[in-house]
């Protein structure tokens, strides 16, 4: 092997990132845009009194499960949120929630159309598949480095890194859901003279909904798993508490903040799953 000189792969990537940095205006615009969404969520969450926030989450849970009520979940949510309040993690929790919601929203807005494109075009599928594999298997830490270079520090690079890491399931599950729509239903849609858009919105997406929502749920969970990592570049929230606890060798503080993340994760997971379930019966 020694006869072959080492490939300057790292140098290439460095110069690519450096080349990207010159488009400051473009990246600033993205930063402002993402920051805007983030701040809007945060503004609303800060505005709502804690007791009302808890009541709203319980009401939402009650509403999405209205056909098949799950009381144990309501009790869990109530106690879990009270615990977060009691531990004085409320503001951190809303910051984490903001990060998760913003990155999930962006992952959804980009991921679903990509998934549709992938289902409709063979070429898109061939190109996107390895890209998605890359995005998902590359250690998430690695994204932080260029993210900082391009978007500075704070919430926004954290969100960008989360989006990259969390988007693949939405794309994949959208693609799979649409491809698995039975041929006969596609034929039915075509034979009655549907346009491509009508077929997409009246047949393919509604039938792919379960699979699509499963993808959204996974994306949300993945972006939640990014919060500690994102805290390393200044994304505030529960992740920061965990990260600081690691630095101070504070097992108690680490677990307490970790528990708050778990509670938030369970609430988000059950809520999105309830949206997926079939309500027609």
């Amino acid at each position, binding site marked *: 092997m020694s006869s072959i000189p080492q490939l300057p792969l790292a140098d290439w990537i460095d110069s690519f990132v450096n080349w990207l940095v010159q488009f400051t205006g473009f990246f600033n615009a993205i930063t402002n845009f993402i920051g805007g969404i983030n701040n809007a969520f945060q503004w609303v969450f800060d505005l709502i009194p804690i007791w009302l926030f808890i009541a709203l989450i319980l009401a939402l849970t009650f509403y999405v499960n209205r056909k098949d009520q799950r009381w144990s979940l309501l009790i869990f949510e109530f106690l879990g949120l009270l615990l977060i309040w009691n531990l004085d993690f409320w503001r951190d929790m809303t910051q984490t929630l903001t990060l998760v919601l913003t990155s999930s929203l962006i992952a959804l807005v980009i991921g679903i159309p990509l998934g549709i494109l992938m289902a409709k075009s063979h070429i898109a599928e061939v190109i996107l598949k390895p890209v998605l594999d890359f995005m998902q298997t590359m250690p998430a830490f690695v994204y932080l480095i260029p993210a900082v270079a391009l978007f500075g520090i704070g919430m926004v690079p954290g969100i960008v890194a989360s989006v990259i890491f969390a988007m693949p399931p939405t794309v994949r599950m959208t693609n799979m859901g649409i491809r698995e729509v039975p041929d006969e239903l596609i*034929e039915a849609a075509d*034979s009655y003279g549907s*346009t491509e858009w009508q077929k997409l919105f009246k047949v393919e997406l509604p039938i792919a909904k379960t699979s699509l929502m499963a993808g959204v749920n996974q994306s949300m969970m993945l972006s939640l798993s990014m919060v500690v990592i994102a805290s390393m570049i200044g994304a505030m929230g529960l992740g920061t508490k965990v990260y600081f606890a690691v630095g101070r060798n504070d097992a108690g503080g680490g677990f307490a903040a970790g528990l708050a993340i778990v509670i938030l994760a369970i609430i988000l997971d059950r809520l999105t799953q309830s949206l997926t379930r079939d309500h027609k019966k």
Partner: protein
Amino acid sequence: MSKKVEVKNLTKIFGKHVGRAKELIKQGKSKSEILKETGATVGVDQANFEIDDGEIFVIMGLSGSGKSTLVRMINRLIEPTDGEVLIDGENLMEMDKKTLREVRRKKMSMVFQNFGLLPNRTIMENAEYGLEIQGVDKEERRKKAQKALEQVGITGYNDEYPDQLSGGMQQRVGLARALANDPQILLMDEAFSALDPLNRTDMQDQLLDIQEGLKKTIIFISHDLNEALKLGDHIMIMRDGEVIQTGTPEDILTHPANDYVEEFIENVDRSKVLTAGNVMIRPVTINIDKAGPRLTLKRMKNNEVSTAYVVDNKRKLIGIVDANDVIDLVRHDSSDLRSVVKTDVPTTNEETPISDLMDDISQTGIPFAVTNDKGQLRGIIVRGAVLGALAGNEVSEFE
């Protein structure tokens, strides 16, 4: 009569080297030779036929004969490799996407083997799908869809979902969806093949009823010769992508084009075409383990019959009851339904040819009960249904 659909040299080749295969097919090479030489599969080999306005045209063949491919080329769900499809003299192959879409919306509707209903939409929303995508406003399309649903006998299920209905009812909804568009041409791809025999017979009768009033041009795909003979004004027999014979049912029975067709018909002849299973109808049944005289009477009233068939929990036939006897029971306040059950009911099984039953049916007043080998009641044969089935079917002359 005017020609509604004309098909000329319609060919479909699947796989690679389609161009080369197309040349070979024109030279008259066989399907297997072409497969060997080019690796391409011939789905449909230069089909030629014409369909009259207002007739039922049955395309018959076993699986793999290319009949489903052929019907999908008529509305271009499958793009033909070569050939023409003319509808009212207009060539479908020359149409751009938009014109084709208009034709699909206004002129042709399709009914599918596995119904093709959208599981996320209610029965009403399914029935109005064709109108909805045309942009017909809600009130009008509801009205039209409702009429179509009534036409096929589905009422009171508007807000149910397809998976809450039986197969037979789902296919009625499929038919209603097609009729709601008021198309001139109906494409029915093995529309009744997924249904059980009883439902299939019902649906065939219903289709003939509807056709009586509407006079659509119906292209019906089937693998069942009995069905083809019952429904078809013309029948086209296909094998391995080739058209073997086209003609009226009578033509095909009397002058089979070759051994293949003859073999088909022999099978039909042996079974004498119609069996008890083909013509039986659903009886009004009373479960004696559950029902008493009052319920029995109510059910008979609701169904407007004077005799009902009595079965047990396992649907095993016990006998029949007469309305007058049940009324007596109710008057005397007795609950012993068993005391009035008459057990001397003539029975037969599903496979029995109708010709064997003809004499008995005309002599006894009581309809025959059709049972399976476990003694379970499958249906009954009433005189009217037998005569109707025979009269609507040219085959009766050949028995």
